[in-house]
């Protein structure tokens, strides 16, 4: 680099800082959360006999069974590998597409990459089986020329292949849009300076690709962590599983709500908190005043009844959500001989929501932490209504 000056002009860099921080925060939270989950699980395993035996045993019995623990481990491994493969391949392809410039069929290729993302998962699984599976055409071809493929048998390899099929195009599109944001002037400058490919990558492409990598990695990790149909069809049995599959099998097999709840608790604890963390981490965006698209924001009430009415609407929504959870609370439907039938629970069903409805507004400030919009509406009504409606929570690039 000439004179050690960065190629990216300062204003551009400042503009990127915000999504970078957001992306880093989100990625860090996700990783931290995953670590916390694993930590708690292993801590329980080793301390169950200690002074906290009672608590440990209760947690063990109530929340984390060995099946859920295995499912979590398996899902983490599978999702991490899928993410690593998809993001690296996707960004590599995005870079190749940008380097290649315009060519015949580029638009078609990009459309096809969207198509890959909207194909129903079970259809894709069957297609992958017929091409890569044990009786698939690729395997047959490979056998004819005397090759034995390392993948193609049911199991982790096939699941990774399927996840790449869905997620490489996603990462590629994100990488492509990130790279397209580089102004032509920079390419011209790089050419006139005679930069080598390696320097172009590290000085120009990587700073923008990094953001796309973080964004696509967090999204793809979540998608693969919660993958269901692909894992069920291609996983080859109980060895490769996710929490969703564990919940499904537990509920199918003699309606074991306790086991389903155990796996569900782990999944819920992980993903809900990740989602909340994403919302909470989006809060700093509230302080951005104006902005390019401020004129697009809907007019919003600032004082008095309308604010309260919006608060109540959100309360009702939370109420409704909580009631759904309450209706299927395993303690009530897990007992032998009892059911979740509407007739049985009608009394409580009508009693509980009003109770929640009265209670929630009182604890508004407590809930504010979890509902940034609500918090924003009360704390800084003028500045931040549009904040969390931005898709940049997931896609900082």
């Amino acid at each position, binding site marked *: 680099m000439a004179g050690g000056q960065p190629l990216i002009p300062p204003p551009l860099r400042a503009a990127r800082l915000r999504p970078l921080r957001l992306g880093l925060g989100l990625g860090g939270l996700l990783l931290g959360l995953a670590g916390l989950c694993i930590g708690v699980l292993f801590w329980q395993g080793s301390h169950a006999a200690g002074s906290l035996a009672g608590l440990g045993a209760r947690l063990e019995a109530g929340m984390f069974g060995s099946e859920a623990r295995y499912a979590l481990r398996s899902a983490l491994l599978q999702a991490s590998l899928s993410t690593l493969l998809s993001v690296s391949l996707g960004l590599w392809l995005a870079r190749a597409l940008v380097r290649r410039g315009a060519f015949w069929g580029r638009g078609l290729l990009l459309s096809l990459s969207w198509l890959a993302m909207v194909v129903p998962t079970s259809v894709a699984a069957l297609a992958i089986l017929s091409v890569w599976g044990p009786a698939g055409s690729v395997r047959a071809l490979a056998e004819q020329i005397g090759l034995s493929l390392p993948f193609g048998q049911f199991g982790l390899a096939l699941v990774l292949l399927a996840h790449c099929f869905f997620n490489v195009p996603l990462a590629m599109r994100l990488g492509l849009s990130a790279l397209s944001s580089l102004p032509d002037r920079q390419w011209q400058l790089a050419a006139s300076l005679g930069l080598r490919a390696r320097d172009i990558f590290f000085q120009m492409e990587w700073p923008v690709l990094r953001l796309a990598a973080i964004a696509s990695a967090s999204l793809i990790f979540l998608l693969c962590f919660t993958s269901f149909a692909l894992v069920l069809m291609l996983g080859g049995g109980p060895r490769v599983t996710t929490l969703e599959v564990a919940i499904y099998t537990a509920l199918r097999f003699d309606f074991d709500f306790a086991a389903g709840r155990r796996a569900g608790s782990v999944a819920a604890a992980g993903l809900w908190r990740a989602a909340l963390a994403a919302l909470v981490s989006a809060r700093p965006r509230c302080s951005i005043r104006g902005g390019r698209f401020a004129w697009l924001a809907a007019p919003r009430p600032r004082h008095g009844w309308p604010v309260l009415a919006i608060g109540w609407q959100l309360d009702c929504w939370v109420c409704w959500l909580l009631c759904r959870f309450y209706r299927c609370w395993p303690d009530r439907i897990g007992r032998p001989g009892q059911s979740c039938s509407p*007739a049985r629970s009608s009394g409580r069903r009508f009693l509980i929501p009003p109770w929640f409805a009265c209670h929630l507004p009182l604890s508004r400030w407590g809930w504010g932490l979890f509902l940034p919009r609500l918090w924003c509406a009360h704390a800084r009504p003028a500045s931040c209504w549009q904040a969390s409606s931005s898709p940049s929570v997931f896609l900082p690039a």
Partner: protein
Amino acid sequence: MLKKLSFSNGAPARLFYSLILALLALTLSGPVQAEKPVLTIYTYESFVSEWGPGPKVEAAFEAECGCDLQFVALDSSLGILGRIRIEGASSPADLVLGLDTNVTEIARQTGLFAPHQLVSQADALPGQFSDPDFLAFDWGVFAFVYDRDRLASPPDSMEALRRAPDSLKIVIQDPRTATPGLGLLLWAKSIYGEEAEDFWRDLQPKIVTVTKGWWDAYSLFLEGNADMVLSYATSPAYHSIAEGKDNYAAAEFAEGHYLQIEVAGMLKNAPQPDLARAFLSFMQGPVFQQIIPTTNWMYPVRRDSQPAGFDGLVMPQKTWLFPAEKVAAEQKGWIAEWLAASR
């Protein structure tokens, strides 16, 4: 408001509103107009498919009961049980058809079933079966099915399958989601007892995949993904009678095969208890029993209804069947054992 709108929009709007009103009236009056009593039966999907026994059974029973027989198709016997458990006492079903003896005790423990108070007509079962709440309607044994053209010498016992080279590929079903899968689990437990976990470990390299349902596994086998598939000893009859193909066969195992008896039972809160009981009687009669073999591909429970074309099938000398109480009490532990060996 309505008047004002129709005036402002003229005749089309009036027509539109009257159509909506007429539709509403039709919807509301629908249930009132039904004359015949409705008998609702929960069963599994393949029973009601167009090539299954459902349509013929429905026509035959409706001809003699003066009622409207409605089948509700659920994905499997485990699915039926799950649905009954969710709906509880308020279930609209009168009867449940398609549970098997492995889950009858679990079903009984829900407290939702009523005694049928009928005398069992089943005289062709390979063992004694009598249950106050459930009546058998067909039976079969689990077996590994193979293609003679692809596999010349199949294993002749469970032990031979266990010791077969790893190049022999089989596809089985998950015991937590599919009836045959649970059948194999119990089959292995009957033969190996405490050593079942070792059996599962030895079998692992041969298992191509563990599917969630019977059809997933069977179609994988038909497409050539595996040499053998866990199915029923009567499955080859379908290929020979319906398709005219003689290359599919079930491997007979020296240790004996595990039995599956499919049953039906009526619910305590059945809206039509008399009709439900009438159906259970009909189910044991010759008309129903003669429909079963070539539509459900299982053996009928009556001697006088034995089908032609089932003669060449594997008919094991020895059959295994755990008491339903033992399955209900032990299956969690056994499944955990299978899970541990499968990972």
